[in-house]
């Protein structure tokens, strides 16, 4: 089933010149967790736009909980080569993006996560330090990544909004979308200086993720 996406190498998924392979793949599902104000919903929206730029069908929608600053928020994104009819929340994510590590003790974040899935965590600390050693042993460790996305956002955008850096890390870690497509999505969402600072943040996060992957999994 979905594992088709996950079992292929990053290079194979991207195909030649960053274009996705053309054969029919099962739907890929992403679940993003964060808190109100962290741009979780726009993160999912921009991811869907990035996938759209690559000619894929994509669907992004928020969880239908109370939207208020600080409250736990979820957003979902599905990416497929065919039209997406399914409207349920993402129950079994292939990729989990956690924008706020304080949710680890409040929400059942890992519910339904595929053992072959990816986890992208916004944290200065590693998985072991956060008490996620069990998860590391259950999953493929090279698919788990922790990145200080809020720090990157503060440095480049000047606001504690980790969504854009995490999209850069998403591209570098999973190869499901190309960095250029993410940049195009950012430029569609923001204008002027805000676009430039966010583009700088996404590049920084992409490079930092690649360096992390090289040092950890070399």
């Amino acid at each position, binding site marked *: 089933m979905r594992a088709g996406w996950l079992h292929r190498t990053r290079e194979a998924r991207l195909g030649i010149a960053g274009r996705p392979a053309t054969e029919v793949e099962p739907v890929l599902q992403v679940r993003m967790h964060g808190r109100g104000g962290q741009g979780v919903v726009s993160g999912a929206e921009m991811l869907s736009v990035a996938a759209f730029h690559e000619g894929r069908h994509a669907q992004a929608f928020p969880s239908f909980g109370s939207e208020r600053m600080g409250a736990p928020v979820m957003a979902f994104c599905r990416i497929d080569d065919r039209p997406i009819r399914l409207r*349920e929340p993402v129950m079994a994510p292939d990729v989990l993006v956690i924008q706020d590590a304080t949710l680890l003790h409040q929400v059942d974040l890992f519910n339904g996560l595929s053992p072959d899935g990816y986890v992208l965590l916004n944290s200065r600390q590693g998985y072991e330090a956060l008490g996620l050693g069990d998860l590391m042993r259950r999953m493929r460790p090279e698919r788990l990544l922790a990145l200080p996305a809020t720090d990157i956002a503060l440095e480049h955008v000047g606001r504690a909004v980790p969504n854009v850096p995490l999209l850069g890390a998403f591209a570098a870690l999973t190869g499901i979308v190309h960095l250029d497509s993410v940049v195009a999505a950012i430029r569609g969402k923001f204008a002027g200086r805000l676009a430039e600072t966010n583009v700088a943040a996404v590049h920084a996060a992409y490079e930092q993720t690649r360096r992390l992957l090289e040092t950890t999994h070399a």
Partner: protein
Amino acid sequence: MLKQIEGSRGIAEGVALCRPQVICAYPITPQTHIVEGLGEMVKTGELAACEFINVESEFAALSVAIGSSAAGVRTYTATSSQGLLFMAEAVYNASGLGLPIVMTIGNRAIGAPINIWNDHSDAMSMRDAGWIQLYAETNQEALDLHIQAFRLAEELSCPVMVCMDGFILTHAYERIEVPAQEDVDAYLPPFEPRQVLDPAEPVTIGAMVGPEAFTEVRYLAHHKQMRALDRIPQLAAEFAARFGRDSGGLIRPYRTEGAETIVVSLGSINGTVQEVVDEMRAEGVAIGSVGITSFRPFPLAALRETLAGAKRVVVLEKCLAVGLGGIVSDGVRKSLSGIQLNGYTVVAGLGGRAITRVSLRRLFDDALRDALAQVTFLDLNTDLIEHELEREANARRTGPTAEALLRRLGAVSARIG
């Protein structure tokens, strides 16, 4: 042009292509981003020759729409939930006067308790108000239905509600083909009103009508909707010929050939239902589904033709007639008058509860064994119900029910599905 945009934004762009001349809306919750987008387009001049009027309430929104439509200009508004209830009196007036207003309903539940999320209670409360009601399955269809709605409304002099699921569609980003202006212009001619409030040629609209003609006025309203039963499929066919897409029509059968079990539903849940139908068909189960696009007028004959060969029909509805059960089921049963088959009503997705594939699969399996009750509440938390009933049986001053249920549940934010 193909775009990846929020449903509400897509509808705003689609409505703008219809060249509305007056848009009025109350911009506070429960409103969607649709009128926000349109307001912006009017301000920037992208939508020219259109007046955007901010009003003080939903009652005023539709009242202004009635005025401008009666003055002979193409008029649009949008609302949902409590907002639709607040304009209820004007809803009946718009249809009673035969004014072709198009209004988007971003379907949401109705309180109390306060709940801003999706179900069909709002539009269903106005189902007999004399408006045509069309339900969209996707954001693409929602956009397309607006173009068809203006054409239908103005041809018949009858207002049309385009219903699209709140949040599930209005807040979802997906790809939408936004048509070219010249194609919309070719499909939708300028508004030629049957009646105009014009100081140069004064008329009265909305005079008192006593028992001598009131029945006839109502009969003619009914007659209009019966004519719409013919026009809706014709307009959909014409739309398909010009735009190359199947949108609208009365009903949308899916894999109903030889189906013993057919699931009937409205709106965006059709997509999830089709996924489950495919899964079960692959296992050799003779199951299919039908989406009802036109709920008013209700397509009795088309449904009868599609459902007559089945052994059982499951009507999945996002609304509840308290004290009866289904609302959609009522019409479906009428369509099957004289035909013996098992009919089940399933109330699902109330107040935004997710309808999952897993739950639908379990439900359809139960239906196949004819093990469903006449009325089923999908994923009902029976422990919670029993606990509350027991509490009420044992004490008098048990306090407010909704709050008691929430306390019993504990942290609700941790729930994913």
